């Protein structure tokens, strides 16, 4: 019975998939699980996957809440680019030599630049939220507007150039280690922890589910669905903005055209893989984190198998179709009835 309960747990399939992918990696690369300590920091394939998955994990966490309210946000990639552009232009940085010592000078103080970037991202999110909950547009179209215009705005900020950052302290966010663990993971853990507390210890999680399951009845039962949806989109913008900081810090430059390209799709895929229904309602934050890790482990496996990385897209397509088929009730009932028939015969 215990095994059955385990099988039925909603995180079972995401976890099983992740484990399977890790084992495939291990089979082709016996050093996969090895972790070394170099210069007081942990190095290894697993750490690498965790570190690289950080931006998608962040974006996908915000996306989970949006999808739970029956929405979708296709503009997160553009928001990543905008936030990256803002922080890159504000920090910029030059290498100056003062009294024979090399020092890095930022245009604006780094905390201010980061704060402004995240605030701009929040504005992007609230804009989406206002269009969805205030004007009443379909979420995909409302966010499509920012997706189209956002990259233009990002290029407007960087004046069409790729802005390189010359300010060492900023690189810590995407490349630094704190107590041996990549710093970006602390950011993910903080956001995840905050969300888990907010959704499980307060009624917020229940409200979000209620709005996703039935907006009308949620409103009748006294939930201010409009404000909730507005801020859920705002929050999604913030997570995309923070992801933008990490991405920009990682590559030490901001590219309005390519930063966060296709990230909205990865984030939606991560949410779907984690077992959150794309029809809204029940959601799983841990599932989303695992979903993002599945995507990154899959990418890693494809690289280490020596398959051209471009095939990644085909594999992702197969994953999308499979996950959707499994989530489709019609498909499940077809599978279920055919299984029953076999059992009846025997």
């Amino acid at each position, binding site marked *: 019975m215990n095994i059955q309960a385990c099988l039925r747990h909603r995180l079972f399939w995401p976890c099983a998939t992740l484990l399977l992918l890790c084992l495939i990696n291990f089979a082709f690369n016996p050093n996969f699980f090895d972790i070394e300590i170099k210069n007081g920091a942990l190095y290894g394939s697993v750490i690498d996957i965790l570190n690289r998955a950080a931006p998608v994990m962040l974006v996908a966490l915000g996306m989970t809440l949006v999808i739970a309210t029956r929405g979708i946000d296709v503009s997160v990639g553009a928001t990543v680019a905008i936030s990256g552009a803002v922080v890159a232009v504000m920090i910029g940085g030059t290498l100056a030599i003062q009294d024979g010592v090399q020092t890095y000078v930022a245009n604006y103080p780094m905390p201010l630049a980061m704060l402004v970037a995240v605030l701009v991202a929040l504005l992007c999110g609230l804009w989406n939220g206002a269009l969805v909950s205030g004007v009443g547009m379909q979420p995909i179209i409302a966010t499509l507007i920012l997706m189209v215009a*956002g990259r*233009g705005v990002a290029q407007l900020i960087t004046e069409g150039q790729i802005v390189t950052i010359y300010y060492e302290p900023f690189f810590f966010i995407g490349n630094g280690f704190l107590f041996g663990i990549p710093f970006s993971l602390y950011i993910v853990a903080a956001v995840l922890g905050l969300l888990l507390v907010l959704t499980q210890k307060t009624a917020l999680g229940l409200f979000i589910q209620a709005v996703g399951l039935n907006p009308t009845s949620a409103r009748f039962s006294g939930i201010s669905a409009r404000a909730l949806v507005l801020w859920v989109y705002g929050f999604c913008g913030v997570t995309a903005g923070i992801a933008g900081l990490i991405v920009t810090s990682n590559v030490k430059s901001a590219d309005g055209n390519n930063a966060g390209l296709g990230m909205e799709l990865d984030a939606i895929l991560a949410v779907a893989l984690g077992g959150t229904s794309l029809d809204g309602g029940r959601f799983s934050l841990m599932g989303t984190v695992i979903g993002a890790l599945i995507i990154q482990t899959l990418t890693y496996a494809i690289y280490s198998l020596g398959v051209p990385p471009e095939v990644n897209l085909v594999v992702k397509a197969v994953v*999308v179709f499979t996950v959707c088929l499994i989530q489709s009730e019609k498909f499940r009932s077809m599978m279920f009835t055919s299984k029953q028939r076999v059992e009846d015969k025997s």
Partner: protein
Amino acid sequence: MKAMRYINPRTLPLVVTTALFILLFGFGAVSYDAFLSPQVFVNLIIDNGFLLVVAVGMTFVILAGGIDLSVGSVVALSTMVTAALVQHHHWSIWAITPLVLIIGCAFGLLHGVLIQVFRMQPFIVTLGGMFLARGLCYLISIDSISITDPTYTALSEYRLPLGAETAISLSGVIAIVTLLVGVYIAHYTRFGRTVYAIGGNERSALLMGLPVARTKILVYVLSGFCSALGGILVTLYMLSGYGLHAIGFEMDAIAAAVIGGTLLTGGVGFVAGTLVGVMILGVIQSLIAFDGSLSSWWTRIAIGFLLFLFCLLQRLLERSKLGKK
């Protein structure tokens, strides 16, 4: 209030779009000497012919209440298949074109079946198709393949003269023919009326005994066909196949349909409106090109802004309609 009676909410977006197009074109004509020539106008069709073809397919999908995000990738796949077969295997154009069109239809069929039979969301299904088609491009080749085949270069350079000093390319002609066929299908066939009925209210369409399942699948097949045809036109225009062709094209197609007055909730719109939508996108690009001092990213911001305005207009119309009831 009396004037309100003469405004039909179904045609208002189209009227606004057409007025805007004339305004933009007129602005160009006043500002730049060479703008007001027939060739500039015809160039709008030549340079955006493939977008028009893809957007016509997209209009049908949106009219039926769905969405197709895979069109850009299917366009890229078509250019890739064409370029690889003609350059590396020296197939004839008469063999390649049907094959490419069949591939496009097969993609549409896959989407349609998954959406209709398994009740999946069109958004996520066509997203998967988008990944698949792009991935297949890279499986053929990671690099761009240039086409040097004489048949293709001849077709690409062919110009049909339209009076003095004006000429239209073959892809322009194909685009206009596609548009006319699209208008015919939408407004004068049983299939077209069923599409409108499904977009208006799927359940009542079903209760009326209309072939809902078949029509919904066929709509995606039609969009796949249009994407593949658009891909052939892109191949002729660029004379190359590349996996990075037509990135973000699906958004342009959706924008053209919406600006052309098609309601995103389905059931309301005109295929001819999509032509005006495409022309507006084209005229914005021409204006920015003629100006010279504005950078290319202003195009994207302008398109985003227009999309916003028209979505807002649509919502206002819906609300006023609800208010009357």
